[in-house]
């Protein structure tokens, strides 16, 4: 006899706390993660606006800011150390609490079980614990900023991060809290990753073979494997860093004088930190982008009324990108003095990742070709994703070559590259996901008109912000500098920096349209039907919003692949995965 009732309760939870606060329902947890990411992105965007203010107008005084952050300003304006703490917090919060949280924890948690026909994740209580762990991590991170934030960038290179308090303001408690927050985040992510993998492997409903899973599920599954294998390495590095800082060890810290004082360390290797960090850091950026790729495939297919071109290749490409992503971390370290042969190997493998990426891009175009395209909000953002992924990705081809990277490393070229990919393409993936799944999650439709304005302003805005950065980088403008007015060779580009700042302020302000749309639609949006987009996957077979056990106690049976649109001879231009009457195309 098998163990039966062990996992979930069959009755819906009662009481406000069990329903909305300490819920084990993956849908509630998904929304909790999504809200956390929303709060984080607002905070992160505000930080970036403050950064851009400093860069465009270095000597300006901002009375409101000086009241909130008296230690961040002096008579000359915003202090450079404060700028550095802004950029450190901006990067850390965006990479961890937005890009790693919303696509996986938010949408993945909500829709993976439903899309594979399960009634919840494999480990619902663990799921709840993952969220609360992540939330605690966020609170600690925000605390780090307010005690005097770290100044070493989100990459926290040693020895700046490891030599302790002497290295600058915020380098004491601020860094310790920062590292602790990241360690807590690692644990939350690891718990989540094992939930995702187990759910995908164990809980697919009848007829849902791996090759019938929506590409979103493939992307979440691969992302979870990446997280499981890479976050522990960051955790290890963080542990060693905390020991260097607080126990006097010298894992990363060489003999070093700081402001004339010899620090009590010797023999450590700063390059070791870089290796450990980037061994995590590179898979991390694929963790940030893969879910967006999966969703883009789904949205493009739905709104072009065509199957995904080359579904199998798309699934394998996701796996290939994930796998290759573990072998390229050295491309962040080309200038570290490594053996040029090592650099060559990293470079070659880095460029090889272009192959599955290109396969995906061409297949997206193939999906669109000849389709009957519906330019609704989710589609606009998915198209935007493709555009931004190509723009940002092309920059990677330059950076992946050692000889070019020697010049472009730590310039604005890199900043433009990773922002286009992570800071915009991935965000567009999240916007697409929000507009696409909002009706299902909340039972209301978002406003189409506001969505279109949001899209146009954001799309143009982000190109205005990040494309010029490639020019700045090629001209040699370094990153992580609080101003450029003192460099004769950059004088002619100061106005471009002002332009970028203005574009940033406008674009961030345009996001208010999104928030207004969100809140208004939640309160007063028109009611959504079960399947407003005429999409084929399993989440569109259940009510909007879904009942607590997703499929009402019934087990869905899957007869079709995920993207059977415009099947010749079918009565409508979309065939639900669960339709028993039409013969399967795959």
């Amino acid at each position, binding site marked *: 006899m098998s*163990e039966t009732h062990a996992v979930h309760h069959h009755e819906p939870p009662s009481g406000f706390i069990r329903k909305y606060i300490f819920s084990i329902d993956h849908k509630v947890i998904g929304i909790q993660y999504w809200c956390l990411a929303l709060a984080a992105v607002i905070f992160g965007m505000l930080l970036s606006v403050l950064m851009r203010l400093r860069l465009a107008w270095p000597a300006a005084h901002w009375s409101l800011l000086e009241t909130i952050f008296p230690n961040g300003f002096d008579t000359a304006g915003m202090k450079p150390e404060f700028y550095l703490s802004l950029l450190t917090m901006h990067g850390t919060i965006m990479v961890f609490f937005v890009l790693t949280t919303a696509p996986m924890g938010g949408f993945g948690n909500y829709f993976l079980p439903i899309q594979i026909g399960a009634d919840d994740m494999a480990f619902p209580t*663990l799921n709840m614990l993952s969220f609360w762990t992540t939330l605690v991590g966020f609170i600690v991170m925000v605390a780090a900023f307010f005690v005097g934030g770290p100044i070493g960038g989100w990459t926290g290179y040693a020895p700046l991060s490891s030599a302790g308090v002497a290295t600058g303001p915020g380098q004491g408690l601020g860094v310790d809290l920062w590292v602790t927050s990241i360690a807590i985040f690692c644990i939350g992510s690891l718990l989540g990753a094992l939930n995702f993998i187990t759910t995908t492997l164990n809980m697919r409903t009848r007829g849902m073979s791996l090759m019938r899973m929506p590409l979103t599920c493939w992307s979440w599954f691969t992302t979870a494997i990446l997280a499981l294998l890479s976050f522990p390495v960051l955790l290890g590095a963080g542990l060693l860093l905390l020991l260097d800082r607080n126990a006097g060890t010298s894992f990363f810290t060489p003999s070093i004088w700081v402001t004339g004082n010899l620090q009590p360390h010797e023999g450590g290797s700063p390059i070791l930190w870089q290796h450990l960090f980037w061994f995590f850091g590179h898979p991390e950026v694929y963790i940030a982008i893969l879910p967006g790729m999966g969703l883009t495939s789904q949205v493009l297919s739905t709104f072009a009324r065509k199957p995904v071109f080359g579904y199998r290749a798309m699934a394998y490409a996701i796996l290939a990108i994930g796998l290759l992503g573990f072998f390229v971390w050295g491309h962040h370290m080309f200038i570290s003095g490594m053996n040029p042969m090592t650099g060559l190997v990293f470079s070659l493998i880095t460029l090889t990742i272009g192959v599955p990426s290109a396969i995906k891009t061409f297949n997206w175009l193939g999906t669109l070709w000849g389709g009957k395209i519906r330019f609704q909000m989710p589609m606009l953002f998915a198209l935007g994703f493709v555009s931004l992924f190509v723009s940002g990705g092309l920059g990677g081809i330059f950076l992946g070559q050692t000889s070019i990277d020697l010049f472009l490393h730590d310039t604005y070229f890199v900043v433009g590259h990773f922002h286009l990919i992570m800071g915009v393409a991935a965000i567009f993936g999240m916007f697409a996901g929000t507009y696409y799944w909002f009706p299902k999650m909340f039972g209301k439709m978002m406003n189409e008109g506001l969505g279109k304005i949001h899209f146009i302003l954001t799309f143009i805005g982000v190109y205005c912000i990040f494309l010029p950065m490639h020019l700045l980088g090629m001209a040699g403008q370094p990153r992580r500098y609080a101003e450029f007015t003192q460099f004769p060779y950059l004088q002619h580009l100061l106005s471009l920096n002002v332009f970028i700042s203005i574009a940033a302020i406008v674009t961030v302000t345009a996001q208010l349209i999104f928030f207004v749309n969100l809140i208004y639609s939640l309160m007063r949006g028109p009611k959504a039907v079960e399947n407003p987009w005429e999409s084929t996957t399993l989440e569109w077979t259940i009510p909007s919003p879904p009942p607590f056990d997703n499929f009402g106690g019934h087990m869905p049976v899957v007869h079709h692949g995920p993207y059977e649109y415009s099947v010749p001879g079918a009565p409508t231009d979309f065939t639900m995965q669960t339709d028993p009457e039409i013969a399967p195309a795959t």
Partner: protein
Amino acid sequence: MATVTTPAKPGVKSGSKVQSGGGNGNKRNGRGPGGDGPGGPNGRTPQDAYKLGMWLAVGGITMLFAALTSAYVVRYGEAQQDRTWGTFGLPHILWLSTGLLLASSITFEFARRALKADNTKSFSQWLLLTTALGLGFLASQLAAWQQLVTEKVFVNSNPYSSFFYMLTGTHGIHLICGILGLLYVAVRRKRYTANRRTAVEVTAIYWHFMDGLWIYLFLLLSFWR
């Protein structure tokens, strides 16, 4: 493909039909009604899920120690140039630690197999012995640390000592989680039977992994120096 479609409007009904598993009422995926066979629609059971989850956790922890090992190897290589590695003799009590932990794995195996054979009394006894041995391991680890402190070998004395404390400490923290698992299973030992033993199986995977990990770390610290 000349299919003509109308753009989606909120009022449009879903195009093709939806079918749910016929006649299954309140069946839960992979859960089956009580008394059924091996389980879910694809033959997978909740036990499989818990075991897979635990193996994945083992994979994650392995990656952590892989990272720490690579730090060890790199740092060791760096220290060779100026001979600052700082080897010292490992406290002999670590042999006792190893023996205790190995014994606890053996006793846990006896416990697990006893439960599989529905010999619940034997299971309880071996389980409690395992827990005691596990606690003994922890005590011997602390004794080893104590001994080093009296010899004035601290975490920041030299690279080797840093790694010693850090590796044994990290292993120890994970082992404490294993002890908590053992205690959880021990407190609830009366409810486990041959057909209801997933918690024991899963704790066994973790505990054996902790044992294997200790052997590995002990070998690393003993020979790579």
